[in-house]
């Protein structure tokens, strides 16, 4: 790869999701030099895995496409994919960041023609679809992926598949000798935006995510709606591929719970309400949705959306955190609990259960200089002692896309102030 140039007037942005992209672009469009580091082979993050955004129900590809256009047009951003920040030392205005570059095994010559993908035989779990389907050993993560360049799975290197991919490539893009590299970069400020991961649903033992086929997570449900997703855009039960008739959405699955995540993940109420509209749109009167909740947290203007969903006669609400799930007949499951409006015991049969799993922070331990404040929920607090390390998006709190973008812009502005000061001192 060509040389990466960074100085203490450069801003390092870790994470290429919607927050990282936004922070990088805002800073770059203000004329600052930015290095954007993404661990995966493409930018886009969790937003690229969504079907629609609430509350306007537009497609995320739209918002993401705008960011990608801005990114392609801006010379001030240097994007590094397959790259991970492994350590930061120093102080505001003068940090050294260590970056690990994993081999992609496919270089800049790639035209995304797809011949290597056709040639290889090995298949692996598709991360973009949360393992709900397989992808080839040589692949492009998804249609909107940027950079539009193939990746060769490291597990295929050294096997016949690696050689097959190399032989199929007409552009000499497959380089099986690529090695892991490390970079040491001098930067003035860091915006940390590595986002979130879904809370591992199997840890919520009474809900039996690992025991029942028809208990899935909200992120998996979201993938079902993608026309290029694992079910071709159809809402189906994983056990038999049949359209469900009676879906349960369980809120706070792993959030607001001392045994799991203590914080409210903030997005899940709206995510489930949004997903009931998917059900209404695709299955109409043929499918009922029931939302089990402690309280619905749809605040300010998104309350209109809640009211709209409440008016749908096919959607009902049960004020109760489900106590446990047991297996029923025909692949169905039975939800047990006691509701808070009348304290009635219930044992409700559902043919598909969607767990509204919470957001777990991905802020790592042991990467930041001493004094960086990571709170009990794993988010980076805004503190003086952090120097010029700023959490953005879901590295600073559990946020929806809208707030994450606002938050990232704020983080970019803070980083800009630091490097501007450095520039002033250096003249």
């Amino acid at each position: 790869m060509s040389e990466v140039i960074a100085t203490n007037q450069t801003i390092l942005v870790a994470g290429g999701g919607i927050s990282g992209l936004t922070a990088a672009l805002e800073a770059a469009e203000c004329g600052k030099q930015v290095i954007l580091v993404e661990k995966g082979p493409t930018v886009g993050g969790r937003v690229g895995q969504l079907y629609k955004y609430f509350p306007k129900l537009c497609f995320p590809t739209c918002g993401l496409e705008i960011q990608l256009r801005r990114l392609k047009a801006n010379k001030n951003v240097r994007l590094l994919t397959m790259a991970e920040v492994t350590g930061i030392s120093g102080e505001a205005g003068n940090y050294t960041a260590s970056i690990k570059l994993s081999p992609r095994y496919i270089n800049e010559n790639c035209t995304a023609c797809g011949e290597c993908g056709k040639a290889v035989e090995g298949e692996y779990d598709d991360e973009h679809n949360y393992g709900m389907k397989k992808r080839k050993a040589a692949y492009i993560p998804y249609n909107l992926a940027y950079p539009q360049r193939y990746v060769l799975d490291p597990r295929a290197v050294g096997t016949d598949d690696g050689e097959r991919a190399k032989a199929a490539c007409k552009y000499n893009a497959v380089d099986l000798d690529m090695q892991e590299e490390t970079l040491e970069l001098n930067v003035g400020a860091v915006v940390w935006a590595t986002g979130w991961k879904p809370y591992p649903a199997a840890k919520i033992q009474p809900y039996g995510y690992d025991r029942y086929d028809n208990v899935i997570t909200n992120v998996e449900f979201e993938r079902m709606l993608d026309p290029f997703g694992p079910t071709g855009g159809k809402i189906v039960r994983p056990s038999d591929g049949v359209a469900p008739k009676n879906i349960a959405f369980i809120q706070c699955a792993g959030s607001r719970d001392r045994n799991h995540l203590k914080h409210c993940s903030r997005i899940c109420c709206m995510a489930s309400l949004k997903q009931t509209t998917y059900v209404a749109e695709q299955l109409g009167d043929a499918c009922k949705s029931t939302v089990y909740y402690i309280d619905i947290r749809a605040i300010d203007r998104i309350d209109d959306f809640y009211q709209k969903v409440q008016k749908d006669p096919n959607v009902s609400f049960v004020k109760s955190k489900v106590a446990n799930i047991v297996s029923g007949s025909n692949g169905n499951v039975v939800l047990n609990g006691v509701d808070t409006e009348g304290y009635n015991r219930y044992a409700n049969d559902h043919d598909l259960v969607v767990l509204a799993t919470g957001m777990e922070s991905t802020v790592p331990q042991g990467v930041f200089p001493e004094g960086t404040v990571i709170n009990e929920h794993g988010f980076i607090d805004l503190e003086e002692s952090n120097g010029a390390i700023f959490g953005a998006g879901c590295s600073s709190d559990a946020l929806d896309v809208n707030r994450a973008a606002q938050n990232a812009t704020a983080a970019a502005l803070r980083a800009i102030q630091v490097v501007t000061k450095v520039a002033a001192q250096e003249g």
Partner: protein
Amino acid sequence: MSNQIEKYRRSFLSEVEANVEEGDMVKMCMQCGVCSGSCPMQNHWEHPPQEIFMMIRAGKREEVLSSSSMWMCTSCYNCIARCPRGLPITHIMHGLATYAKRLGLVPKEQPTAKFGQMFWDNLSKKGRVNELKLGLALYFMNGIGPGIKKSLEMQDVGMGMMKTGRMNPMEILGGHSIKDTAGFSKMLAKAFEIEEGNIKNNG
């Protein structure tokens, strides 16, 4: 006026906070219902724990303290393990039962309360539980007829226990005791005195 509102809002909750073991945690309940749904005795509750906590906050003093609900708790600790906010529900239930007993508000013929009393009377005499007497007292709790019936039903089990040395028929004549029963009685009397003092101070 404001004093009256305060009284209306807080009086019973404050009373529970002052007198019931870990009663100060009652206000932490967020009414999710996991405790009620997780309780193995849930079909026998008059009011599930979640409802009891709401009733405390709503000031329903008589209904809470004369409820049979807290007497149904078997201390399985499922609710504590599952509570998203870490409320010590089991402890609060036993605390409420103790407080209701102290005030004489336990429902008449509440079997768990009766058994509790029986167990205590049995234990406090000699410092050891006399299982033979306790078992018999339990069988005859509801009268001579049902007692004889139950005894006959359990005859085989009893014989088996005697054969294997798990039950001594001579226990009926008084039974074994700890070495220093007088000291034990003194200790209990002191504990009562301290407890009475606490009640007076908090009460």
